[in-house]
C-alpha cells in the first residue's frame, strides 16, 4: 500500500514568514501546518496571526490541507489566535500542550461561542498534541472530551523537557515509552497518530530509522520541517507493516 503525502506528511511552516508559506504552497499537495506556536518567536506572535489569517484567505483554493497550530491554552495567545483563524475555516486546528480533558473542552467552548456569534456553519476538527507526562496519563479522558479529534500527535521536544523538569532519570527513554503508549492507544482506537518532528534534517538515515520505529509503535504519519524529509515519510508510513 502506498499513500500520498497528503495523508502522511505534515509540513511545518513558521507563521510569521510569508516567504516560507508561499514556498510551501508550491509543493505537491500535502498537509501544511501554519505554526503560530513554537515556529514563531514571542515578539512575532501578533504579526504571525495576521500573516496566517491572510494566508488562509489567499490560499483557500489550494490543493493543500491547511492546518493552523495555535498557541497553547496555557499561554495568553490562544484565544486571539482562534479569533483570527476560525473565521477563515482552516481544514484543521492543531492544539499544542493539551494536558487534560478540561484544556480541550475550554478550547472547544471558545470555538463554539465564536461560531455561534459569527453564525458560521463550520465544524473544525482538531489534531491534539500530547507533549507532557500528564497528557499521556490522561489520554483516555482527553479522547473522550471531544467528538472532533482528527488525530493525536506527539511533541517530542516538549515531552523531553517536561521529563527533565520533573527530574526523571532518563528523559530520552521516557520519550520512547510515551511514544509507545500513544501509538498503542491510537492503534487500539483506530485513530490517526502523527509523530514528532526530527530536527536533524540533514541526517536522513537517522530519520529513516526513527520513522521505522515510529511506524512500529503505531504512528501513521509524521510532522516534518524540511522538504528532504517528505519522501522518507511517504516511503515509511505509506507502506503498511507486513
Amino acid at each position: 500500500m502506498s499513500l500520498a503525502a497528503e495523508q502522511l506528511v505534515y509540513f511545518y511552516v513558521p507563521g510569521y514568514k510569508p516567504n516560507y508559506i508561499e514556498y510551501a504552497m508550491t509543493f505537491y499537495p500535502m498537509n501544511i501546518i501554519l505554526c503560530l506556536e513554537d515556529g514563531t518567536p514571542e515578539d512575532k506572535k501578533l504579526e504571525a496571526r495576521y500573516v496566517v489569517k491572510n494566508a488562509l484567505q489567499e490560499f483557500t483554493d489550494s490543493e493543500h490541507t491547511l492546518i493552523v497550530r495555535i498557541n497553547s491554552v496555557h499561554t495568553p495567545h490562544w484565544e486571539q489566535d482562534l479569533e483570527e483563524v476560525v473565521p477563515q475555516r482552516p481544514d484543521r486546528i492543531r492544539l499544542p500542550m493539551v494536558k487534560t480533558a478540561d484544556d480541550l473542552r475550554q478550547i472547544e467552548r471558545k470555538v463554539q461561542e465564536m461560531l455561534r456569534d459569527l453564525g458560521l456553519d463550520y465544524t473544525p476538527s482538531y489534531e491534539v498534541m500530547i507533549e507532557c507526562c500528564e497528557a499521556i496519563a490522561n489520554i483516555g479522558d482527553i479522547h473522550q472530551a471531544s467528538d472532533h479529534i482528527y488525530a493525536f500527535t506527539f511533541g517530542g521536544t516538549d515531552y523531553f523537557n517536561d521529563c527533565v523538569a520533573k527530574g526523571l532519570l532518563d528523559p530520552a527513554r521516557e520519550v520512547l515509552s510515551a511514544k509507545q503508549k500513544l501509538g498503542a492507544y491510537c492503534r487500539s482506537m483506530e485513530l490517526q497518530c502523527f509523530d514528532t518532528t526530527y530536527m536533524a534534517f540533514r541526517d536522513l538515515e537517522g530519520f529513516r530509522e526513527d520513522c521505522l520505529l515510529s511506524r512500529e509503535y503505531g504512528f501513521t504519519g509524521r510532522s516534518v520541517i524540511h522538504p528532504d524529509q517528505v519522501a522518507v515519510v511517504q516511503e515509511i508510513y505509506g507502506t503498511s507493516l507486513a
Partner: protein
Amino acid sequence: MNVSVGSIESSDIKIVIEEGHPAIQFINMVPELPDQQVYDYVVPLLEQYGLAGRSPQIWFNGANEWVVRSRCEALAYSLNPVNQREGVTG
C-alpha cells in the same frame, strides 16, 4: 509610539512608524520594478488601513498583496490604543 512590522526578507515588506517622522519614506528593494509602480501598489493598501497618513517608512521587497495586507492589519491593530495587550516589534 514607534511600531515596526514585517521584514526586509524577499517577498516581504517592512513598515515602520516612528513618532515625529515627517513624511512617508519608500525604499524599493526590487530593482526590476519601477519605484512609482511599487508606490502605486502599496500606498492604496496603506490608505485602506488608515496608515498612509502616519508617515510610514517602508522597505518593499516583493511582497504580494496578501502579505502587505497582513502587515497592515498587524500594524493597525497595534496602533489602536484599545489593543495594547501585545506589542509589535520589527
